[in-house]
């Protein structure tokens, strides 16, 4: 199962990159980033998985003494948690930029924002 997740994660990452590199609409590019992030998260969670184990929460079903052999890796999960929130911040900020770009030129075509070059 983790292999499936990893594969899916990688493909989603590449799909996100594809969107970022080919779509001309800025909103779509930002969606691309969002997809790219999601792919990363899937990969990270897949790496945390340990075959046939349960969530790293030590409640009634998981004995404290034997937790080492029962739970999946909490570390990548914690990292994903952080990454998701960071992703939200980045997305929000990019959208702000998108709005401002649109306000400037009344278009969202990335090709029309080339005032700075060379």
């Amino acid at each position, binding site marked *: *199962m*983790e292999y*499936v*997740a990893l*594969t*899916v994660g990688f*493909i*989603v990452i590449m*799909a*996100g990159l*594809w*969107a970022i590199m080919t*779509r001309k*609409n800025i*909103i*779509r590019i*930002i*969606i*691309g980033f*969002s*997809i790219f*992030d*999601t792919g990363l*998260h*899937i990969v990270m*969670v*897949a790496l*945390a*998985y340990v075959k*046939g*184990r*349960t*969530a*790293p*929460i030590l409640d009634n079903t998981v004995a404290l003494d034997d937790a080492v052999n029962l*739970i*999946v890796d909490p570390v990548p*999960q914690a990292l*994903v*948690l952080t990454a*998701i*929130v960071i*992703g*939200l911040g980045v*997305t*929000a900020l990019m*959208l*702000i930029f*998108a*709005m401002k770009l*649109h*306000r400037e030129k*009344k278009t*969202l075509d990335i090709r029309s924002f080339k005032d700075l070059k060379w």
Partner: protein
Amino acid sequence: MSYLLIISILLGIIMLAMAGIAIYHKSQVVAIIAAGALGLFASVMYLLLSAPDVAMTEAAIGSGLSTIIFFYVLNRIRTTDEKEEQQLKK
């Protein structure tokens, strides 16, 4: 275990489809929703991978709030476009 595998494969296919829609669908709205849905299906996948915390976060933040913000911005851009058009018509 094999049924979990099948589910995960199915989930994966759906997710890829969602990604495709998000990238290629003509409508921005559908694209945004598809991207949100991608997050939701991902969170299901996280549950399968024994990561309830991540699943919750992804659902609430990654697909939920993000999508809302996307809509806000899209809405904002659209309204200005509409106003522009109206002004042009006038």
